[in-house]
């Protein structure tokens, strides 16, 4: 199977999946637009019958069966008046039908498109959450967000407006064509003559002008960026006294952007006016030839009126059609961009998907690792952490300590020949990923908090956690007092419009969030760096008291923090340089001893 067929198949499958739940409403909207078009087309017929048959006295044999029966019902005294009243009633009845159909069309088309868009968004979001971490690292955030927002928006417009409208217009055109042909084929031909011209004219115009529109959009983007930069950089602008320069720069781009639009003014105005003329000519043709036909007795005035109504009805839809077709290519591009995300494979458990009760013994067995084709960041690392003990890790930037914990959390996976990581003797490859991650609590140096309340952030893993449990965890993380000091306490919103938490407060919130989960394994990746020494000590002692049974990995460069660990690992350029207890290492003559010396001698040295 070649690539393009595979793509097509994928496209079709994706669309079918997206369409679940909305297909019915798409069909309903089409049905409604047929009914609505029919109602539109029947109304002039009623007027025609009134004019030609009731008033004009045309022979009843030429009437359609339903009309003949209707008029027959009003035979008797004051026939004409009664027949007209009856036809008026029929007209209102049709109008009622039209109103219902129109309403049904509007609602069902939106329901269909919105349901489809919702499915698309949900699927996309769910897919994004389940893509491997490596994928997220590989793609730029801005680009992904763009695809999830503007591209979806383009598709939505296509589905809710362009596509449904297109179908509606085509239905209207085909139906009115058949009605007109039924009345008078020759006048139909004349009246319809300008239609293809108008459609093609509008199509080619919009295809050509499309680039100019794009150019305008880009220039607007540039202008908006200048304003954005000026506002975010206001300190720099002022401190360097560059207000004048900024103003000139903004005004120059502003003029450029304005000029781009001004250049479009003529073609656009010409396009609309020529469109007016073409539509006007279409009606003129009908008026003139209709009149001639009537004059020669080939046609009745009522039919003529119906023709005029049909022409008026078609004017706008026909003028919109060309543009719609021209704009359709945009949706295709957007669909491709979304497909690129949907096509990336989700995280998958390759192994046996076991869910063992985890006690917390961790073994790294000859682990080597490189990100894709880059140089190795870990080389032949082996160590064992018995359950319930604490391992301290000391290492600089690029020593591989962060890679180590990411591997343990299966954010990256080891392949064959890169060694093994085992928990309680089971290769983590064979442990179900969610089970594994639920057993590991991780606090990062720069934690990510969600724009929700502090309480919601702490209890994010499980909505059922009680306020008591939240506060208990916060107390252990030395956060409770701080939070109670906020006006809204635990209901304070974290994020832009809420309170800006300091680095230390964020870290402590993240610690509380991890503690509340009571995981058998805890990892602190340099996560006490932003809190002061006293708080650091307080947090550690409360950790020991409450979570003594957990296996802990503590990454830090503070000897006071590390010294409490049962065992310490010194990582240097992806390899284990030293390992042992604090007592052993502080005299081993290696890096650890050097750091110890630096940090213990500091008080005096600094005071000098």
């Amino acid at each position, binding site marked *: 199977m070649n690539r393009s067929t595979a793509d097509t198949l994928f496209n079709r499958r994706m669309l079918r999946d997206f369409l679940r739940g909305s297909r019915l409403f798409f069909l309903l909207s089409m049905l409604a637009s047929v009914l609505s078009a029919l109602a539109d087309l029947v109304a002039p017929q009623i007027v025609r019958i009134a004019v030609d048959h009731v*008033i004009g006295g045309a022979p009843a044999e030429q009437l359609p069966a339903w009309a003949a029966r209707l008029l027959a019902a009003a035979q008797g005294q004051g026939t004409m008046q009664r027949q007209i009243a009856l036809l008026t009633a029929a007209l209102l009845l049709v109008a009622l039908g039209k109103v219902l159909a129109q*309403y049904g069309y509007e609602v069902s088309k939106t329901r269909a498109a919105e349901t489809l868009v919702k499915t698309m968004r949900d699927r996309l979001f769910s897919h994004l959450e389940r893509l491997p971490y490596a994928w997220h690292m590989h793609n730029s955030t801005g680009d992904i967000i763009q695809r999830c*927002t503007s591209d979806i928006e383009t598709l939505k417009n296509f589905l809710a407006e362009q596509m449904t409208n297109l179908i509606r217009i085509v239905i209207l055109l085909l139906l009115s064509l058949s009605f007109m042909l039924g009345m008078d084929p020759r006048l139909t031909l004349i009246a319809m003559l300008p239609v293809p011209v108008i459609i093609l004219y509008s199509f080619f115009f919009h295809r050509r002008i499309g680039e100019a529109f794009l150019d305008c959009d880009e220039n607007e983007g540039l202008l908006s960026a200048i304003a954005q930069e000026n506002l975010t950089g206001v300190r720099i602008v002022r401190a360097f006294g560059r207000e004048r320069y900024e103003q000139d720069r903004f005004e120059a781009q502003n003029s450029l952007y*304005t000029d781009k639009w001004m250049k479009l003014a003529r073609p656009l105005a010409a396009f609309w006016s020529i469109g007016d003329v073409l539509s006007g000519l279409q*009606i003129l043709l009908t008026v003139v030839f209709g009149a001639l036909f009537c004059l020669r007795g080939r046609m009745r*005035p009522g039919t003529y009126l119906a023709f005029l109504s049909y022409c008026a009805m078609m004017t706008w839809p026909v003028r919109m059609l060309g543009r719609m077709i021209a704009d359709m290519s945009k949706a295709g591009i957007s669909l491709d961009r979304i497909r690129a995300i949907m096509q990336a494979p989700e995280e998958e458990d390759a192994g046996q998907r076991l869910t063992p009760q985890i006690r917390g013994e961790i073994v790294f067995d000859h682990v080597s690792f490189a990100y894709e084709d880059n140089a190795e960041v870990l080389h032949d690392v082996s160590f064992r952490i018995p359950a319930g003990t604490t391992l301290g890790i000391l290492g600089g*930037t690029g020593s591989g300590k962060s890679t180590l914990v990411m591997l343990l*959390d299966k954010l990256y996976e080891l392949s064959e020949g890169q060694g093994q990581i085992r928990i309680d003797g089971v290769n983590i490859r064979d442990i179900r990923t969610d089970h594994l991650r639920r057993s590991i609590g991780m606090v990062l140096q720069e934690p990510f908090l969600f724009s929700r309340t502090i309480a919601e952030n702490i209890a994010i893993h499980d909505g059922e956690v009680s306020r008591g449990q939240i506060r208990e965890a916060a107390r252990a993380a030395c956060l409770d007092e701080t939070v109670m000091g906020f006006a809204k306490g635990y209901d304070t919103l974290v994020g832009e419009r809420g309170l800006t938490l300091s680095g230390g407060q964020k870290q402590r919130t993240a610690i509380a969030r991890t503690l509340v989960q009571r995981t058998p394994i805890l990892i602190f990746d340099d996560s006490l*760096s932003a809190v002061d020494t006293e708080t650091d000590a307080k947090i550690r002692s409360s950790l020991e008291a409450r979570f003594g049974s957990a296996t802990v990995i503590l990454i830090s460069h503070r000897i006071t923090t590390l010294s409490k660990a049962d065992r310490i690992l010194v990582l240097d350029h992806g390899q284990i340089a030293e390992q042992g207890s604090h007592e052993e290492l502080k005299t081993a003559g290696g890096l650890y001893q050097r750091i110890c010396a630096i940090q213990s001698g500091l008080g005096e040295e600094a005071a000098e």
Partner: protein
Amino acid sequence: MKKNPYGLFGLRRLLPQLRSYRTPLVLMLLTSALGSIVDIGVPLFQRYALNHFVALGTLDSFPLFLILYLAVILGSAGLNYISCIYGMKIEVGVDMDLRNAAFSHLQTLSFSYYNQNSVGYIHARVMSDTSRIGELCSWTLLNAVWQGCYLIGAILVMLLTNARLALPVIAILPVTALIFSLFQRRLTQVNREIREVNSRITGNFNEGITGARTIKSLVIEDRMEKDFTADTEDMRRKSIRAARLRGLFSSTMHFASSMALALVLWKGGYIAASQIGTFSMFMSYAQGMMEPVRWIVDAVGGLITTQVNIERLCTLLDTKPEVLDRPEVLERYGDTFHPKRENWETLIGDIEFQDVSFRYPDGEETVLEHFSLKIPFGTCLAIVGETGAGKSTLANLICRFYEPTDGRVLIDGRDARERSQLWLHSSIGYVLQAPQLFSGTIRENLLYGNPEATPEQIDRALELVSARDFVDRLEQGLDTDVGEGGDLLSTGEKQLLCFARAILCDPRILILDEATASVDTITEQKIQSAIDTVIRGITSVVIAHRLSTVRNADWILHMEDGRIVEQGTHEQLMAARGGYWRLYTRQYEDEITLDALG
């Protein structure tokens, strides 16, 4: 509704900006009205064709008829063409002028304004409020006039032709307008709600993508998905509600047209026998009249919603800067946009705080009380403290971004207010924690503070901050485009350039506001060593998160919770064994350890 302080629809405030569009505006409205009047004529031709040619069975005036008819079509199109061009001119012109006015005014506003309003909010004033107003002045107005004339014209023609038939048809109009305006208001409300949900969904995507690692580690994919689904469901429901309203809206219109048509048939069927053309004309008008009603209701609704935009923009334009140069200072030194550099004295760099008390305009607490400090020319002042301790306050006062509530800040022995802001700012170099570049090339960015810098000076500055290497490694060197906000470069690279930019403007006062807080250790070292060279011979204020630079400062202020808790030289403060000592030992330990670890 809230009373508008800016008079008639708030537009009066903007009149100075709009005045130059008076002629195009009049021409637009005139051509639009004429175009509309000509367009009213079209059904009259149908009437004539039927009443004359068909009913009388003659073609006597046919050529004239054809010529006139063509003239009407072309005339209407021509008039529409002209009004469109004017509409476009007015729209983009008003947009441009208002944007320029807003942007230019923003350049003079004080920092308190920027602190009280988010960048997104201000940006929307410049970009979207202006375009809404531009649209109102052009298309909304044009349409309202066109449709209004059509409506009035159609009513007149009908009344003149057959008043008895016309009256019932006309009676439908106000009822329809009333129903429209009811829907309109609710539709506006629902649309606003939809926009809110939409931004929530975008926020969700943002969080789901930037927080991917945390979400995975916490295994909360399902929970995030559930919350996301709730938002998309909300979106779906609200959109469908909007569709219902839109559906009712268009149904009403269709029904009103049909009612009018039915009325014409019922009441006017009899005239079809003798005057089929008049009947046809009535049909056309009856059906064509509802569209204008809808447009006019839309225009009124648009005016009401644009009201908010007008008010916001006016508020911005009426905001007075809190830091203002006095008239006599402006006279001598010139304003921000027209400096009189020939009158400027050279700035030396002596700074003195004299009994300064200060409270932020939007704050309640007094952060400085009777503070006095001399910073003689050439001094390095360091300010230390935790995040949020108010370390930038002094820098803000030195730069005159704010003015003291009480007391004076002297520059070279004279009150800062005696000289213009631009005079002061032209001699200040400033490096922020978050590197701030502007889109353009590296060269353009370096020249930002001093457009006259020579290539040699640029070279020297790059050398000094050790940025030579990375710039040379770039294919286009100094002409490399840095992207929006400099985002094509790494944070470290950006900061090096920011530092070079500050050096290039040859400042007398250099302010380093946590300049190394967000860069990697290697960049930090580069900047650090550059600092030592650069601050020799100028006055510098170093706001530091990390303390290694601070050691060599001439004077150190330690701040906590917005107040100065300690001050002195490094030795004095270390000997005191207070907060500074604690802060310093901890940081020093971290730094030296990381250094040893490599």
